[in-house]
């Protein structure tokens, strides 16, 4: 028995370069004031900024060179997403990357060659996986009939309002399939969600009666595996983002603890605040370790057991620590922490969104128990 198992952790020169560029970009382009400017806009992000990100090649980092990407894999996206999380920069990058992975991992070569190049150029894609709020369900209640007409709906589809294409999981005669829908086909079918994390956007989509073009149906053995892999990649990318956000939240807490005085002393000298802040630091560092360990294990092939373990641990740890950090950030700011003006609200809100995304900590630990103990 070897419960701790694989502990590989490598960091490539490409990852290092991407990290440097992404950190600088996010620092320059996404100060907290810019983040706040987007909280109440329709799309939640600045379109010009998104085009700049595409120009840097970020949409194509994980896609093969044959479709215009840089062929570095999902692991190389991790430092970029972490940097974005640290700057609270919300854009459709994660959703676009994941939708693209679904197509890449299960589509025919024709579908890959037709659907992916526009995404490298700044096109937006998203994925519709959930029939309801249960991340533990298979997400196949949407039905594709013999006549290629859909019946059913999906919930919580991120960036649905701006996506050029939506990739939805469905079943056809009991088999998992993916359907790719263009924005025009979904006009008038979106019901926007009001999300707790105002840096993001999502909507429920009613697909009933939508006709899917034959060329936009992805079927075959690879679909089920692609769905599983992409859920794990999603867990990892959200974990990477959450790790960055937890570090930003920690910085916010530390800054206040170093400046606010009560009883004639800086409040950071009180151990009731100091020690939990250290717990946030060490918990965030653990999340980072899991995230980069998982990034090390991701390849082009289907995720193996070690990679699955790593992604699940990353998500379990990162969402737990961001929740703790956001929660303490509010408390440690006192009355100020209860205001909309205080940045603590950004983190506690993101924490609660992150918690559920791609399965909460309990969801992943339950699966880890089966992977490790049975």
């Amino acid at each position: 028995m070897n419960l701790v198992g694989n502990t590989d952790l490598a960091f490539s020169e490409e990852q290092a370069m991407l990290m440097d560029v992404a950190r600088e970009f996010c620092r320059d382009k996404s100060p907290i004031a810019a983040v706040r400017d987007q909280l109440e806009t329709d799309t939640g992000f600045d379109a010009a900024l998104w085009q700049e990100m595409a120009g840097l090649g970020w949409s194509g980092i994980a896609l093969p060179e044959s479709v215009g990407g840089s062929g570095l894999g999902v692991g190389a996206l991790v430092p970029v997403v972490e940097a974005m999380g640290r700057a609270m920069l919300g854009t459709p990058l994660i959703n676009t990357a994941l939708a693209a992975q679904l197509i890449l991992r299960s589509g025919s070569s024709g579908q890959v060659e037709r659907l992916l190049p526009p995404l490298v150029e700044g096109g937006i894609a998203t994925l519709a996986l959930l029939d309801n709020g249960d991340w533990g369900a298979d997400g196949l209640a949407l039905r594709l009939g013999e006549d290629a007409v859909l019946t059913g709906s999906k919930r919580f589809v991120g960036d649905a309002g701006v996506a050029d294409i939506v990739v939805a999981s469905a079943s056809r005669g009991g088999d998992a399939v993916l359907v790719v829908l263009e924005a025009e086909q979904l006009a008038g079918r979106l019901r926007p969600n009001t999300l707790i994390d105002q840096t993001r956007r999502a909507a429920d989509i009613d697909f009933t009666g939508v006709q899917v073009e034959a060329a936009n149906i992805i079927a075959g053995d690879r679909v089920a595996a692609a769905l599983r892999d992409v859920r794990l990649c999603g867990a990892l990318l959200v974990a990477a983002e959450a790790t960055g956000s937890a570090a930003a939240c920690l910085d916010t807490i530390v800054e206040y603890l170093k400046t606010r005085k009560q009883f004639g002393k800086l409040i950071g000298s009180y151990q009731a605040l100091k020690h939990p802040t250290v717990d946030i630091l060490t918990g965030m560092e653990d999340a980072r370790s899991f995230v980069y360990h998982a990034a090390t294990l991701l390849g082009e092939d289907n995720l193996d057991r070690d990679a699955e373990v790593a992604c699940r641990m990353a998500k379990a740890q990162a969402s737990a620590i961001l929740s703790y950090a956001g929660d303490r950030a509010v408390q440690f700011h006192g009355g100020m922490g209860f205001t909309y003006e205080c940045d603590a609200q950004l983190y506690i809100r993101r924490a609660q969104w992150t918690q559920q995304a791609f399965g909460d900590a309990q969801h992943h630990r339950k699966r880890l128990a089966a992977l490790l103990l049975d």
Partner: protein
Amino acid sequence: MSATEAELAEFRSDVSAWMADNKPADPGFLLPQTFMEVGDERQLEFLREWQHKVWSAGYLGMAWPKEYGGGGVEPVFQNIADQEMRRHDVPICFNVIGLGWAGPLINDIGTEQEKSKYLKGILSAEDIWCQGFSEPEHGSDLGNAQTRAVRDGDEYVLNGQKIWTTMGNFAKYMILLARTNPEAQRKYDGLSFFLSPMDVPGVETRPIRKITGEYGFTETFFTDARIPADCLMGEEGQGWSIAMQTLQYERGAEAGAAGGLAMVRVTVEDMVEGLEGVERDGAPVLEDPLVRDQLVQAIMDEKALVLSVRRTGIAHLTSDYPGALPLSNKLRASELTRRMRQLAINLQGGEGALYVGDDTARQGGFWQRAYFNSFSATIGGGTSQIQANIVAEHVLGLPK
């Protein structure tokens, strides 16, 4: 020139073969799980003989200079030797205060004379070392230590009391923190650091019985004890900074240790394997969903610790909170160990109430004893609360 992969692989197989051939048989009495539990002569002699053997075979102090009894090779060899010791589950190299703290200190800042006098005896286990830092009234507040050292000709005269002196009753030398100047403006500046002999008149040790019922540390009394003046390390008044440097080795934040195992290996795996046959609600305990969740969390904690050590070497992944990983290592590792051992007992059901001495106790009461002993690391070497203060102040820059 650094060693090739092939050389390292060959070395590994040599060590492995040696460990397999030389691993001592069960002595038939309880062996210490850490160096802080050496309670009687039998245990002492057993461990002394083992350490001597490991050193004689060339598997201890490999990176220390050759002229002082070391191997004079790259540290990677010692790392491999340590891994093999762990894999073969051999006994500890118990002279840890020498091997891990005093030795590296002497190597790094000692004089030529100090190096030739002390280093070899540390490696061979001929000279056991102890640490005289804590006092009854000054533990965490070590900077306030009051044991006096007064210069008298070419001697210092010691008066006062130390406590919790691990292996004090077996040691030949002590790293001693004592006050040479009670008038110094800052309490820290009045302290000096000594490499002090224990076998002089006026030094007396009295063993203290521990939470486990065993022995391992002592009270240490100094009554007009005279030691040669050249026992002073560095200059008078440098005691605090030298003591702090010592603690860096002790907490694993600074390299230089001679190697060898400092404690018996206990992993989350051992815990899970130890639950063989335990039932809960009439079914194997590993089927209980709440237990499973607790075990997964323990596995994650242990894995995170291993990963964080790996990550320490990657500059890009450690640049934003410099020192966070090494400075929090002792805190995380010791607290995890404590939590895990407590969990191991709690999962035993009724048998969790048994202790060493009851022959129906699971694994002879190993986990119960191990749980109690885990506090040696959450208290000794600076308590977890003090470690948290250090991380907060030195990594996050929070005020004192």
